[in-house]
Each structure stands twice: as C-alpha cells, then as structure tokens.
C-alpha cells in the first residue's frame, strides 16, 4: 500500500521481512499476534513531532521506516540531539513503562512509518508476554548504555574539535567502514544538527569542517564524506 509520503507501508508485523533483524520486533508467534492487535500503523511526513519532552506518556512508537531525531531542550531554546533513531527502535519506552513524562522530544527527519501502541495496552502486553518483556529490558539496556556514552562524550571532551572527530569516527565505525584505509560516510545531518549533537554552534561546526578539509583530513563529495587521514582524526579525538 502506498502512503501519501511515498512510503511502502508494512501493513502487518506478521509478514514484515525486516522483523528478524530487529531486536524488539523478533517476537515469538503468540506475542507477535498480540502486538499486531494493539498497534496502530501510521505514516508521518518529515518534520513531524511524535512526542515532546515533558509531555505525559500516551504510549510508545516502534519505528518501522525512516529516522527520528531524539533531542532535549534547555529553557533558553538550546537543543541537544541525543540520538538519531533508526528503524527497529522503540521510542518513548521508559516513559511508557514508568509513567513519568517523556524525557526527550522525537521528530521525524525522513518520512516515517511508525507503529503506535497505547500505554495501557502495552503494559498489559508486557505482563502477558515474558519474551516481549525480555526484549524491552534489552532495548532499555541499550538506551541506557547509549545515554552513558553520551554523558562521557559531552562531559569529558575538552573541545568541539575533539567531539566532532569522535562523532565522525563513530559514524564510520557504525557503517562498517572503520577498517578501511579511507572510510566513507553519508552526512545525513545539516551542520546545525551536527552542532546540536555535540553541544556547540553551527558556526563552529562549519569552521571545523573547513579546517579539516584544508588540512586534508577529510574530503567531501556531495553528501559523502571521506576520511582521508584517519590517524589525524584519531589524534584529534584523543585530545592530543
């Protein structure tokens, strides 16, 4: 079925081909049937806000297609991107489980397909299906580890250059490119968004990229970035 945003919607979790590769979705037959009955498949355009930090939890969102920006905001409007969520991730999970307000804001950065599940339905589902409960524990553990990693990256890096170098190396490692002599990565975020990921200004990110290009540490071809001097970038990342 084609949606208004050009997404090829996955109508049923039971027939989803990507299910087995995704941590939460790879449920047992009975759990999957039960999940199918409580989920609402929805398509969102780019820029849609799924939930806002501080809002009472209505339920959770399983990201089927597209990417979602997870951020926290200061009272002065300063934004920090905590993570870019990829398909298969469950968003709003800890707030839905604990009943506390959402601690992040989730905004789509691509057209997305999302499966929404109401809080009460999800809590009942968890009580009835122990394999789903275990998968939720695994998802929460990954999110917790990621949050600790974020605290370390933000709190213990001394300069914006160090943070940017760490981010680029992390992206290249996630793409399976880190072993290559000259790793490549697709820059899917704007300089503004990269600045929000490392807690600095857009101007600083633009200046750092220009400096890295001038020193031939990186090279950009359209939206593809090539790391030409991995050791120089590693040196920057280790604050030496």
């Amino acid at each position: 079925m084609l949606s208004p945003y050009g997404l090829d919607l996955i109508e049923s979790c039971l027939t989803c081909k990507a299910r087995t590769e995704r941590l939460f979705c790879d449920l047992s037959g009975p759990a999957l049937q039960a999940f199918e009955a409580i989920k609402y498949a929805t398509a969102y355009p780019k820029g849609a806000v799924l939930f806002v930090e501080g809002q009472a939890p209505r339920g959770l969102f399983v990201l089927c297609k597209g990417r979602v920006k997870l951020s926290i905001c200061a009272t002065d409007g300063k934004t920090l991107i905590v993570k870019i969520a990829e398909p298969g991730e469950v968003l709003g999970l800890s707030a839905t489980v604990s009943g506390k307000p959402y601690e992040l804001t989730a905004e789509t950065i691509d057209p997305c397909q999302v499966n929404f599940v109401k809080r009460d339905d999800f809590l009942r589902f968890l009580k009835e299906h122990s394999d789903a409960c275990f998968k939720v524990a695994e998802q929460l553990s990954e999110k917790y580890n990621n949050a600790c990693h974020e605290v370390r990256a933000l709190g213990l890096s001394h300069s914006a250059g160090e943070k940017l170098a760490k981010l680029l190396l992390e992206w290249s490692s996630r793409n399976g490119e880190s072993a290559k002599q000259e790793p490549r990565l697709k820059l899917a975020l704007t300089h503004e968004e990269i600045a929000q990921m490392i807690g600095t200004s857009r101007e600083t990110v633009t200046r750092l990229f220009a400096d890295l290009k001038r020193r031939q540490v990186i090279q950009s071809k359209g939206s593809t970035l090539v790391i030409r001097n991995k050791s120089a970038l590693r040196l920057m990342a280790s604050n030496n």
Partner: protein
Amino acid sequence: MTAITVSGALLDYLESMESVIERSCLECVRRPDRLFCGLTQDALRDFDLLKSLAIYPRGTILLRQGQPARSVFVLCQGRAKLSVCSESGTQLTLRIANPGEVLGLSAALVGGFHEISAELLENAQVAVVKRKDLLEFLHQHRDACLQVVSRLSQDLHFAYDRVRSVGLGQTRRPRAAHVH
C-alpha cells in the same frame, strides 16, 4: 543458608554487622521498599539460590568501565558512586547508587562491556549473581523481568537527566536529586 564472602580487613565489620546482615532475601525486612527486591515468593526463593553474598570494603570497584559484564551486583547495604571515565583518566560522576539498586544490569543484559564504573563509598553488603544465571532467571520469572524493566526505565531517566545537565548545563530537578 547463603555463605558470605568477606575480605580479611572486614572481619570486625562483619562481627558488628552480624545482627543486621540478611542472609536470605525471603527474610529481608527492607525488601518491600526496594524496586528490584519486591519479587514473588517463587522468584525470591530461586533468586536466593542463585546469589552469593559478599561484604566489600569501602573503595572496592564492583565494576569497571570497559570490562566485560560477567555478573550483576545487588546493593543490599551501602552506597556506590557510578561514574564514567575518559581515555585520559578524567572521571565524571553520574550519580550515587543507593541500597536496593542493581549494578551492571544493562551491560549484563546486552552482553557487552560495562559503560560505567561503580565504586563503593562505604563498607557494603552485596548480592552477586552471574550473568548467565540472571538471564535464565529472568526468562523463568516474568515478574522479575518486569521489575528489571522498571529498574532500567528509572536508570534511563536518571541518565537522560545527566545528559541534560552535562550537555545543556541545566537540570529539571534540584541538583541534590542527582546524588540521593
């Protein structure tokens, strides 16, 4: 009765604590106030068989960032400092863990390396459970798995609060809330 492992320097401490040390979770009077420990009788009985009790002195590192997760530690008595560390050795405290908390849970569940270090701030009584035993226990006891999910949700809320305070220099709750 569960045996207690104790380091030599702490024998005096053990003697003074003998009357308050709970060897069996089934008889622990503090259990109802603690999120993870509020298990059903069946689960508690099984947990009692899995755990080994240990008394550690102040300053003991229960888990170290970067090390593989082999066990989880339930703090029965005593507090621990949770921190992250840079490659150069600079330390940043995340928060202080209180009695009743389970340390090393997230790394044990995903089977990876510890993302944080935990150091005891005082002499402590700790229940130690091997990772393999914990995973089997959670698969067998749905209520325990639900407790773990609740525990991890709370941990995640604290972690995001710390991301906010470190990354944006702001807190949603008073600063004192991070250390209590």
